[in-house]
């Protein structure tokens, strides 16, 4: 049986919007191999780069925040990002676990 271990990210998104913030929703839409968080995991980001929730175990969040801020600045509605396994060069954004994830970014309008 699965429980709906709901992280209340969408509720928080609604609060942020009501506080007149520009908000981007990031959702894990696909995973391949060993990925840190399941499909449907969510994170929200505002124009200042504040964020809540997660789409990985901390591996790609910084890139997602950057892309989300770009989306807001360029006033684009959505964007799809894919993250693959990172190689050994330090500080590169990627998933150390060897999995792949697709993250969908969308602005609320």
């Amino acid at each position, binding site marked *: 049986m699965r429980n*709906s271990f709901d992280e209340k990210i969408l*509720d928080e998104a*609604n609060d942020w919007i009501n506080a007149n913030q520009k908000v981007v929703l990031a959702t894990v*839409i696909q995973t391949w191999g060993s990925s840190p968080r399941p499909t*449907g995991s969510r994170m929200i980001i505002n124009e200042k780069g504040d964020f809540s929730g997660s789409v990985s175990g901390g591996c790609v969040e910084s890139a997602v925040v950057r892309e989300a801020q770009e989306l807001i600045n360029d006033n684009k*509605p*959505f964007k799809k990002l894919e993250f693959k396994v990172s190689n050994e060069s330090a500080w590169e954004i990627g998933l150390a676990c060897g999995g792949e994830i697709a993250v969908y970014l*969308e602005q*609320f309008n």
Partner: protein
Amino acid sequence: MKHSILKKIVDLKKQKKEFAIVTDLKNSNSTVYKLDEDLDEDFIQYKDQIDSFFKSKNNGVIDGTDIFVETYIRPIKVVIVGAVHIAQYLVDFAKSLNFEITIIDPRGYFASEKRFPGINILNKWPDEAFNEIETNSNTALIALTHDPKIDDPALKYAIDKNFYYIGALGSKKTHANRCERLKEAGYSENQINSIFGPIGIKLGGKSAPEIALSIIAQLVSETYKK
């Protein structure tokens, strides 16, 4: 996603409704779909696939399309008998784990709104209280009073209704006496053995939050076994 859709989602979650969010990844248009309602016409051609995601309670992209489906299911209902100190910590854990808690305790001085703000508390004896709660085989019972007058009727109800998790607080001796009473009341060995008693996984701690943690850990583990 439109803010109006988000507001609808937040509202449905508050009402503990089951629904799916369907998003066209090509243009970020979303809709909310409830099983008993018509699907938005932009998505109607995917109805069968969306229904199957709904039934399997899964999230994902429909094969060969750009349609993403996320399902929201109702939280699991957990009935706690005994508005005691441990219950206060259970309520805290249950919040982040999204279990839906109802507390039963006929003793008014325990079951007060002040001690359990925002929690559904039934200040009644179990037999009467269960008339007001919708339960099924996806419901869990945590009996904490170790008073047979209060715990036993609740345990009997949970066994009769085939709850997926039944746990009862008390020492080995208390539990042995409890089993004996249930046997005398005509319950089978299998039924009696389905009760987790003494409740919780062994962590070693004796404080209220530690016992609550051991109970909630067992509850989560049993939830995934089912």
